[in-house]
């Protein structure tokens, strides 16, 4: 998808004014947060598991080449194929090639953020294939020609009326008068419609939450079971995953899995956690005839060894999104690309450049809530600050802001000048605001005073009063 991250401020304006979106976002606040809290409270070892998760991933990243080679060897041994893609375009072409090899028409898809990242669906459609998203949320937004707004709940920005609307507009072979106002009815309809597609599919494409080096297995985690139907029924199963998904052993994956569902939805474990190793075995009654893994770099190897390496520990749980007050206010689409929220703010500039995505790491108060809930202990605010440092070096911040900062810094580095300026400002503004005690309008402060009053200074700076009291006492 074409990024609109550069238009973040305009996106935000739209999002804040969108009543339906705000209503949908309101649902979020009570759901994920409380459930995660309950799940964490129930597991005394949670904090220790976070430390362990960080250690497993850090170790893996330090030996990433070794583990990827081991993974590849084991996939091949199990009868699968591994393909390496440097860029989004390479990945798309590899996938197309595999699809063409069986004259594929219908391609079912389990939820995969990587496939969004490489804009796979549009590409496959342009090539005459029919990609069908099977995760309910992804299916809904595919029909609406929208991007996902959340990394695990893609349609979280919608209310049920909008889902009813698009189903009626799309499933035109079903009786018009049928009831569709309740999530139960909508889910049943999607189940029936998508069951047809599952059965028709020639190729099924999933992502992977983990790649297991030890066994050459890929792991998907779903609640619906759509990923499993996607990968089991068609002739070919393609796994699309970025490099950093690899972990050394089954036990390592298990340790991190204990963090994943709890951090995401507050479940002890997601409904379907599936380890797949190679294609159908001789004598199997079901299973895909071919098993392919497409390993995507697209900027990951370049993040290693930099101040952004820690971001490669991300397991895409969405805890940071769910707890971020900025995300809660504006939703995912405002971020303008595939990955929203705090993790998106750190990752997106790495993948599409800081010129395009610079707004994202700036739109944070550094409240630190994201880092406090990240199961992998990723220091998100610190990395957002690093992006701001890069932008500062490249002069990318808007000019008026840079000028204001430079002016302020000029004074702050010069105590005597600062003292003079502060004492004066305290007096002047104090006098101006004396009657009301606050300003409802102030030149240069329109952003603030547009929505709130600005308290006025008491009138004489602390330092001036302190020095005066010291002189009196002496």
């Amino acid at each position, binding site marked *: 998808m074409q990024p609109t991250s550069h238009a973040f401020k305009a996106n935000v304006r739209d999002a804040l004014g969108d009543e339906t979106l705000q209503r949908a976002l309101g*649902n979020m606040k009570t759901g994920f947060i409380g459930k995660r809290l309950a799940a964490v409270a129930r597991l005394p070892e949670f904090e220790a598991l976070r430390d362990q998760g960080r250690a497993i991933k850090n170790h893996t990243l330090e030996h990433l080449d070794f583990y990827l080679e081991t993974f590849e060897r084991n996939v091949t041994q199990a009868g699968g194929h591994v393909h390496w893609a440097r860029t989004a375009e390479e990945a798309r072409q590899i996938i197309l090639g595999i699809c063409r090899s069986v004259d594929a028409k219908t391609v079912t898809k389990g939820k995969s953020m990587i496939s969004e990242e490489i804009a796979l669906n549009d590409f496959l459609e342009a090539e005459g294939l029919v990609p069908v998203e099977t995760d309910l949320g992804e299916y809904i937004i595919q029909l609406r020609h929208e991007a996902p707004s959340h990394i695990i709940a893609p349609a979280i920005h919608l*209310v049920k009326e909008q889902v009813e609307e698009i189903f009626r507009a799309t499933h035109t072979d079903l009786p018009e008068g049928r009831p569709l106002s309740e999530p139960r009815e909508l889910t*049943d309809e999607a*189940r029936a419609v998508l069951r047809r597609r599952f059965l028709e599919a020639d190729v099924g494409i999933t992502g992977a939450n983990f790649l297991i080096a030890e066994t050459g297995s890929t792991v998907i985690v779903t609640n619906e079971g759509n990923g499993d139907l996607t990968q089991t029924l068609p002739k070919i199963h393609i796994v699309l995953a970025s490099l950093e998904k690899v972990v050394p052993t089954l036990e390592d994956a298990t340790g991190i899995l204990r963090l994943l569902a709890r951090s995401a939805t507050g479940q*002890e*474990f997601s409904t379907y956690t599936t380890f797949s190793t190679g294609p159908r075995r001789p*004598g199997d009654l079901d299973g895909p005839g071919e098993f392919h893994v497409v390993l995507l770099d697209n900027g990951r190897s370049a993040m290693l060894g930099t101040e952004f390496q820690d971001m490669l520990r991300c397991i895409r749980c969405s805890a940071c999104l769910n707890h971020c007050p900025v995300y809660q206010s504006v939703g995912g689409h405002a971020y303008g690309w595939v990955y929203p929220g705090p993790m998106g703010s750190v990752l997106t500039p790495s993948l599409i450049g800081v010129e395009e995505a610079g707004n994202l790491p700036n739109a944070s108060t550094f409240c630190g809530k994201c880092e406090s809930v990240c199961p992998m202990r990723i220091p998100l605010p610190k990395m957002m600050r690093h992006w701001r440092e890069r932008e500062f070096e490249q002069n990318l911040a808007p000019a008026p802001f840079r000028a204001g900062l430079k002016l302020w810094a000029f004074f702050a580095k010069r105590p005597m000048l600062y003292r003079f300026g502060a004492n004066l400002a305290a007096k002047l503004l104090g006098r101006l605001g004396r009657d009301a005690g606050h300003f409802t309008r102030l030149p240069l402060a329109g952003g603030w005073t547009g929505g709130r009053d600005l308290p006025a200074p008491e009138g004489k700076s602390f330092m001036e009063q302190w020095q005066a009291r010291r002189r009196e006492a002496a």
Partner: protein
Amino acid sequence: MDARSQILDSIRKSLKRGPLGESAATVPANRIAHHAPGLIPGRTRSLDAKGLRDLFVQMAEEVQTTVTRVADPAEVPGAVADYLANHNLPADLTMAPDPALDAYPWVDRPLLHIRRGRAEDRDQVSVTGAFAAIAETGTLMLTSGNDRPTTLNLMPDTHIVVLRADQVVGPYETAWARLREEQSGNAMPRTVNFITGPSRTGDIEQRIQLGAHGPRRLHIVLVEGPDAKVA
């Protein structure tokens, strides 16, 4: 340079080293060879066999799995028949050709129509065994095989699992150890499903609905054996 070489090269450049030398490579190689368990939550540690079964049932029921506990294998077909009747489901089962299921006297319930094989779209009810049950989270572990088609776990509306008491373990690590032992060496089954309750989605307004794509009902018949009678 091909993509594979270039990517590996890029990784090494970023890590400021070349390919791992023999001695350096022993670190990750050993990690894989030893596949040591990490931190295991204490919740199952001091439970005996019955305690594990009780915990498993409690956790499973929390996620809308239903469980019938029977003392004797002979009671299994009756438990299945009763479940179908109670839920107004047809007595038409697709059962895994798994020899483990041959141990139950299905002939005692001649009204149960049983087809052995993989699932087809029209199938409403499937019956499978399991490899293990993880008490820690109320999770079933099912492995694929020639006589254990995976589609039975996913396609029908109702999935019934016949579980034996000795299959219930505490944490995931015990299950992995058992699988490794059974598979001898690193060969994994094609598919290992960890199933924790029936299929569900919260994708519409965050309100949970069961039966999104996979089964909307997951029922377990747990054969507990003589010690089930112990308090």
